[in-house]
């Protein structure tokens, strides 16, 4: 279903939803995030697949986040994610710290409809110590003792991301950002913003079809030109380093962030 604008998309994300978001180079729905902040979302459980940056920081700065589940929140070359760091220090968000492959395996467990996936690693870390939902069992396939971690399935209420291209049937082309496919498979509802909407059928195009999320996994699509900016969208535009630096600088303080948000491009124009 093609929506009229980003506010319609944001309206489909209820307060308290568990939202899966992609890493900074895979198609981050920044324009939609502005719309979500504009609708004053609260109590979100953000699951980064497996890390986040500006998007999580913006939502945290806007007070929209209750739980932050990720393997890392960073503004990359621009340094620390200011609002994330401040919220941690203030105890304003609940942390579910993990490691990249554990988040991906949890998502894949939901994709496969199984209650858990096993993973090597984690044993002896303080990550594991702080995750009572992760279980250590003895590998039943081994002859001797062989402890292994089981990760519970992560089923997002919402998967939210930005992609280069959709068609009117609701198919979405994602290129190499394959984690978006896993997110759409695993999530209950998948909301996507796109640069362009084509009149053709992406699933009928032999070159596009292999990297297209079929419409049956897509709940709604909204057009958002430059919807990942100032982050990069592979093959479409590069990151805007100056704009990212400006964000990083502003996000060092609550006041700076508020001023940045007030100056941000309006939702209507997105």
């Amino acid at each position, binding site marked *: 279903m093609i929506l009229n604008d980003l506010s319609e998309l944001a309206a489909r994300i209820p307060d308290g939803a568990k939202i899966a978001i992609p890493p900074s180079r895979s198609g981050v729905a920044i324009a939609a995030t502005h719309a979500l902040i504009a609708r004053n979302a609260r109590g979100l459980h953000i699951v980064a697949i497996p890390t986040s940056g500006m998007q999580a920081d913006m939502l945290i700065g806007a007070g929209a986040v209750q739980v932050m589940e990720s393997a890392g929140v960073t503004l*990359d070359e621009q340094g620390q994610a200011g609002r994330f760091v401040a919220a941690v220090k203030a105890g304003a968000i609940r942390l579910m710290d993990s490691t990249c492959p554990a988040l991906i395996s949890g998502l894949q467990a939901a994709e496969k409809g199984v209650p858990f996936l096993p993973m090597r690693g984690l*044993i002896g*870390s303080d990550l*594991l110590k702080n995750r009572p939902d992760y279980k250590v069992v003895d590998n039943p396939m081994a002859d001797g003792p*062989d402890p292994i971690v089981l990760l519970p399935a992560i089923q997002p209420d919402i998967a939210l991301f930005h992609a280069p291209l959709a068609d009117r049937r609701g198919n979405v082309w994602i290129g190499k950002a*394959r984690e978006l496919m896993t997110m759409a498979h695993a999530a209950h509802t998948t909301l996507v913003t796109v640069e362009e909407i084509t009149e053709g059928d992406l699933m009928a195009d032999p070159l596009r079809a292999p990297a297209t999320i079929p419409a049956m996994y897509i709940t709604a699509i909204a057009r958002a030109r430059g919807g990942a900016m100032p982050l990069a969208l592979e093959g479409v535009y590069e990151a805007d380093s100056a704009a990212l630096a400006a964000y990083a600088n502003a996000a060092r303080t609550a006041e700076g962030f508020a001023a940045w948000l007030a100056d941000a491009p309006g939702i209507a124009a997105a």
Partner: protein
Amino acid sequence: MEYLPEELLICTITRLLEGTGHIAVGVSSPIPGSAALLTRALSNGKTGVTVLNSANLQTLNDGAGELFDRAAQGRIGAFFLSGGQIDGQANINLVGVGQYPQQDVRWSGSFGSAMLYYLVPRVILFREEHTRRTMVDQVDFISAPGTSPPEVYRPGGPYALVTGLGLFHFDKLRARFRLTSIHPGHSLEEILDNTGFGFDYEGEIPITPTPEPDRLSLLRGPIAAEIADPYPKFAAAIFKS
């Protein structure tokens, strides 16, 4: 031949990578990335390199999990990790300082360390800042431990630690670092003063070899051009390219 401190570190790391089949390099790692590319250039086609978040230096196309699958498949011979804190048992902390979760200092997070540190055979710890702030007796939060009990599946782990002051190798059985060499211009006393953990050393400790001129030439030529893909600022600043 004149060289920059970064070039010394790159050449030091390169010596640790010799013979590796495939080297993966994480984000924000220009010095390890340069060392990996230099290793590849010297390997006669035997070494491959994956640099995360680069357009041309990686072939990942199966999503954010592929790098970790590759490691678990045994396809990655060497990887680099760092830490806001590194302790004498090679435990690393990428999370923060103080009592978790409401810490006084919070860093980005553990990323893939809590898997890759277990599975990649030759993990090189790299942290340029060598102070009692970074090299601590005991980390405040273990993102990934340096050693594991024998029953834990762990084909990988720490191999060496490279800092701005020297090179250490890690002894897994003793769970202790051993000082291998001291970088030119620094001293054992300086290292002892700036290290929060105990480590082993014996007799006269060698000076870290200065960069080999032929390698420096490679570095400043073709490698500088390659590393400018993921790290343009670094390449411009160090290699003027």
